[in-house]
């Protein structure tokens, strides 16, 4: 199986039911593994607890950038429509008096403050999400498995990666076997 150009990448165990997966996940969690994951075709509720995951904090990014968008909108509108300040020589502000309103009238700026806040919040959530989950990444060794295609259909998987400190070819295999998987395989990746 293993030759010189390959090294173990991960163990992949397949389960048929959500309960079997969650039970196995609890065991892997209790065994103290860190670099492992469950793979399910849809977001499965209860796995956070079964895997012992901390709550996600992506909302902080969204909120911060949303507020930044609001601030940016205020600055943009005050700078372009109300100030005479000339920052870095790009387009000096030009106080624009329309309908006798003061150039920096605040109420008329609320809609754009809201829209830019939402826009930046949306972008931050998208790119924050991709940053946290480290995607796009098209070349994961887990795709070497033929059976893994079912992870996006109707089967459930646990993968334990070889870079986990507790990873051990025999002990990890024994742990996964004790969870009665429908299928268990060692996936190897090429050594670069």
């Amino acid at each position, binding site marked *: 199986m293993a030759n010189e150009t390959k090294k173990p990448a991960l163990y992949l165990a397949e389960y048929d039911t959500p309960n079997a997966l969650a039970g196995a996940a609890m065991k892997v969690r209790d065994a103290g593994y860190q670099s492992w*994951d469950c793979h399910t*075709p849809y*977001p499965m509720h209860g796995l956070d607890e079964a895997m012992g995951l901390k709550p996600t904090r992506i909302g902080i990014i969204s909120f911060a950038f949303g507020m930044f968008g609001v601030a940016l909108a205020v600055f943009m509108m005050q700078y372009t429509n109300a100030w005479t300040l000339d920052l870095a020589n790009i387009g000096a502000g030009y106080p624009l008096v329309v309908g006798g309103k003061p150039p920096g009238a605040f109420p008329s700026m609320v809609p754009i403050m809201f*829209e830019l806040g*939402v826009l930046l919040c949306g972008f931050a959530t998208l790119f924050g999400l991709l940053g946290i989950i480290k995607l796009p990444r*098209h070349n994961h060794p887990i795709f070497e498995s033929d059976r893994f*295609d079912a992870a996006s259909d109707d089967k459930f998987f646990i993968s334990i990666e070889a870079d986990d400190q507790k990873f051990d070819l025999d002990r990890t295999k024994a*742990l996964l076997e*004790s*969870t009665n998987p429908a299928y268990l395989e060692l996936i190897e990746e090429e050594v670069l």
Partner: protein
Amino acid sequence: MSSYDAPIKEIGETYLLPEGTTANDVTETIAGVTENPAPRGWWLLFLLSLSVLGAMGAALAYLFYQGVGVWGNNAPIYWAWDITNFVWWIGIGHAGTLISAILFLFRQKWRTSINRFAEAMTVFAVLCAGLFPAIHTGRPWFDYYLFPIPNQMDMWPNFKSPLMWDVFAVSTYLTISVIFWYVGLIPDFATLRDRSKNMLRKRTYGFFALGWRSAHRHWQHYERAYLIFAGISTPLVLSVHSVVSFDFATSILPGWHTTIFPPYFVAGAVFSGFALVMTLMLICRTVFKLQNIVTIKHLDLMNKFMLGTGLLVGYAYAMEFFIAWYSANPYEQWVFLHNRLGWGILDENGNWGPLWWAYYAMIFCNAVVPQIFWFKRARTSVPIMFIASILINIGMWFERFVIIVTSTYRDFLPSSWGMFHPTLIDILTYLGTFGLFFTLFLLFVRWIPMIAIAEVKGTLPGAHPDLHAIETHDEEPDAAAAPVPAE
């Protein structure tokens, strides 16, 4: 964990899908649409839409060659079909966000069957809408003036103008809708990737799936991100049509200068959007045989939404009249009695308010037709709801036409009165946007999963683990037998 895969109250305490449906059935049914040869109906509709799109191309080419004068707009009706169509299409888009975001926040799980579909509709409708103001500027190659780009003329947009607010609202709405739609699609692209037999499909879907590997550590953040998108889309969708209504409400023109406009426009937008979702859904579930996923109970619920928003819109129509009377403003009363109802003094040709028919068409389609949905038999009859949804769409187009044209064509001074007649190019541009919309839409149903595969699977009975059951009976032999090093 039972609340996620429990029977759904709103569709009569049943599961979203018939009992016995497996996750694999869901994948096969939905992904199959993109894999099997297209039904003949699809080709017919696609070629038809493409032809209509071509007609729009010809109309626009002529328009760019001649200038916007080829439209019927002229003093005093500077806004006519173009802005009517803009508001109408934007409104259509609102149902998509309502279904995908607001119903998500309210935990209406039945939405899962229709949300993807409605989101796609939002994106395409907003694209069609954006076309009109972009052309109506007269010189579309200067449209970049609308954005605050530093330039050698030191010229900035006027941010106190509601038209500028509109630019920001609509472009934000389009961007967020596309992102929301795409984020929802990532896991489903992965499903299609994993099922692909040939390399081109695998590469293409794989590219858009971003290497998604269904990992729970990803799902965890993904679900929260999805919730945040729903949370920001909800006020966004309410703001967009409010801002569109400000285009009118902040002016001093009788018939436009009305404080009821923001909620009135939002209700109308949801109303017309639901009607178009209904029209398209009825066609698609027949052509692609999706009756098991989009059941008659879903349609029943959507009809109730149309009834509810239809009543709101009817209330707004009545309230406009009340305020016109209560304000004691003769110009306001003139607009409502003469321009809209057709009563009052004769014009130079001996006619009474010549655009009266648009108002009665609007009242019939928007306030009278939806009343049929009080009856369960109408709410569950496909032909009736199909016809009603089309009538409502027509009525909502007339609503915008009534607001825009019948307010402007006879305002303060009889000497400045005018009349609007659409030109052939007006008609072709409007019909042409249907070509654009349906071409994009048909490509969508053919190549992209039109129902959210992953979300539907999460509603199947037993889709989520019962942790208590596992913890209580699984403690014994296996855990002890596991040869885990004690570190």
